[in-house]
């Protein structure tokens, strides 16, 4: 190829290269944006995403979601935030270890008790294990389906289950069966920024009939954490069900496609408005 012809070609190709580059950049930008949006949407549709259970405060009845890893303490940055005497700003660290349970590691000789036994360097909590952080009495509840050993039958220390609201609401007594445990209900005089858990997904008054099945014969808890959608739907009337649905989900998008053109969605929203 003659050098003149090549020169013209190369000069022309400069623009082609820039155009292809722009296409790639534009597509990546859209990809990033759309991915961020679809991820957010997915997270909204999965209220338990990234969680492995919850930690229930046995004295107040409040429950806080439990991520895979995080901190327990009084500071705002902690994943499990507790208030009370003897609780440091960052009191302990926890991480979930598959096949072993929830590893609790006290920070700087802070006082942590697992089922009444003080933890020196680390200890594993399983489903139902009782945890004492400073003065706060907690119970670890893990989702079913996680790979964790069944808890050995820890003897409950005397007197603990007799105290607090937890016991009453949990067992409900013979006559109280059918009521929701107290930690599902909105608490009174609760601090504003201290939202324990998304309680909205389980409407108060939803019937829970089969409590008996949640304890095995040897006293282990097998309580199923989440309600299936069908269960909920059948339990609620149509109006309640509609209120529960996230607002910007159009019915045909409920399947949650991660990548689709944002254009039609925008149009739909306009039409709705």
């Amino acid at each position: 190829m003659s050098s003149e012809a090549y020169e013209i070609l190369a000069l022309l190709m400069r623009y082609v290269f820039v155009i292809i580059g722009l296409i790639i950049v534009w597509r990546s930008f859209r990809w990033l944006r759309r991915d961020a949006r679809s991820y957010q949407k997915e997270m909204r549709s999965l209220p338990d995403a990234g969680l492995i259970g919850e930690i229930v405060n046995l004295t107040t009845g409040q429950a806080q979601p439990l991520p895979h890893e995080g901190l327990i303490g009084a500071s705002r940055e902690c994943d499990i935030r507790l208030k009370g005497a003897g609780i440091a700003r960052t009191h302990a660290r926890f991480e979930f270890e598959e096949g072993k349970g929830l590893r609790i590691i006290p920070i700087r000789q802070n006082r942590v008790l697992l089922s009444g036994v003080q933890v020196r360097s680390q200890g594993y909590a399983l489903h139902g294990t009782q945890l004492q952080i400073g003065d706060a009495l907690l119970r670890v509840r893990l989702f079913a389906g996680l790979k964790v050993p069944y808890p050995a039958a820890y003897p409950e220390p005397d007197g603990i289950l007799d105290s607090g609201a937890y016991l009453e609401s949990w067992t409900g007594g013979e006559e109280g069966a059918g009521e929701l445990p107290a930690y599902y209900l909105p608490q009174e005089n609760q601090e504003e920024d201290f939202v324990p858990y998304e309680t909205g997904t389980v409407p108060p008054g939803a019937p829970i009939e089969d409590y008996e099945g949640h304890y095995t014969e040897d006293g282990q808890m097998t309580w199923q954490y989440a309600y299936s959608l069908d269960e909920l739907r059948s339990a609620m009337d149509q109006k309640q069900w509609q209120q529960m649905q996230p607002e910007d989900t159009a019915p045909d998008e409920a399947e949650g496609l991660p990548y689709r053109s944002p254009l039609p969605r925008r149009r739909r929203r306009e039409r709705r408005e």
Partner: protein
Amino acid sequence: MKHLQKNIRRIAILLCALFVLLASYGAYSISTYGNRWFASSANTFARAKKKDVIAGSILDRNGVVLAASENGSRVYQEDLAARKAVVHAVGDSMNNVNNSAESFFATYLYGFEMSFLERAGCALKGEARRGDTVQLTIDSRLASYVASIFPSGKAGAVVVMNYKTGEVLTEQSFPNFDPMNITSAVRSDPQKPFFNRAIQGLYTPGSTFKIVTAASALENLADIESLSFNCTGILQLGERMITDAGTNLAEGKITQHGDLNLKKAFQVSCNNTFARVALQLGDQRLRKTAEQFGFNDNFLFRDIVVENSSYPTANRNEGEIAWTGAGQSALSVSPLHMCMIASAVANQGVMMEPRMLLAATAHTGSQRAAFSTRVYKTPLTKERAAVLKDYMRAVVTSGTGAAAQLSGIKVCGKTGSAEIDTQENTNAWFVGFLDEESSPYALSIVVEDGGGGGSVAAPIARQILSWLLDHGY
């Protein structure tokens, strides 16, 4: 996990900011300094272009061809004296002179401004590509004349510009050299002929800086014009001693001016008085005025590269401040900038941006670029400019610059004799202008190691100005 999320978001913002910084700094520096980098004599890319592009010609303002391409090589004017006179403005084919037209306008000369279609058209027609023709504001005849009257063997610089438009009629540096025959003697000359003193030489301004001191005094000291000073010849300030030209303590000679006011002091160029004025002003106010005149500024003119002038900031004791008022100390200024300062006085306080490029024309005849006139700074008000003009007129009528006088023509000016420690004689300075509506020209002259400004530089100024008037400027 919760604490991580927040920190990660902050880190992400920081990392993105780094990239924004990269892009914006790149855009800023390329848009501000890009053409300077391009014009650098180290630009081998432009030089490599010479193989495939026939470089455009360089013309002077009257259309005289200063440089042209013939059979693949660069040729300059035939007359030796003429081509030597403009060599610093035009440059040479080897780019020995920094920021000359040959390198600074390479983007036009070597066809970098051609669009893709033009280039493709050339290639399709099988023609060689031709660069654009560049017309400078230089007058080659004036340059030759100036070269003929400049004291031979001396180094120095001459700048003549139109103070209303900023067009530079000539910017010359001496000694010069022949661009078509660069000998090893030229290369090893200790006077550095390749160095363009007019725009890159930084000189101590000497008494010519008194224009700035006077401007500052008029601005900041209310009754300065009515004040009377008493010049005793010697002003002792700490270890520094302010003396006047002609004083030689070893021989017991002391120049004394006696009682005088500011105008008279300007006229006779009394260091003593200006030292006191500078002390009264103080460093802050004097520097502020100097900066209004363009000192300590980064000159980024569109088509001419001028070395930055500096007003000293370190070591400011009383003696230094006093000497600064008289134009000594660590002040440095290029002849072109000094010419601009005179222009500001001449042009009612408005300093125009200096210009070298009249037009760049494509070989097809269409105009590629032409810059409009632009105001660089307005350091003076009309009234103060008029007062200063009056002072400068007095210098020529009955002061140190009498040698620049032309009968019937209003010539204004200021002489200077800057003392340099390493030299036997002072640097001779003259800056001035024609106060004529039809011939708005300012000039500045430096003769290194020349002697007194009034005796050496002022006569050159008179000859140049009379040449200008004779040749219809």
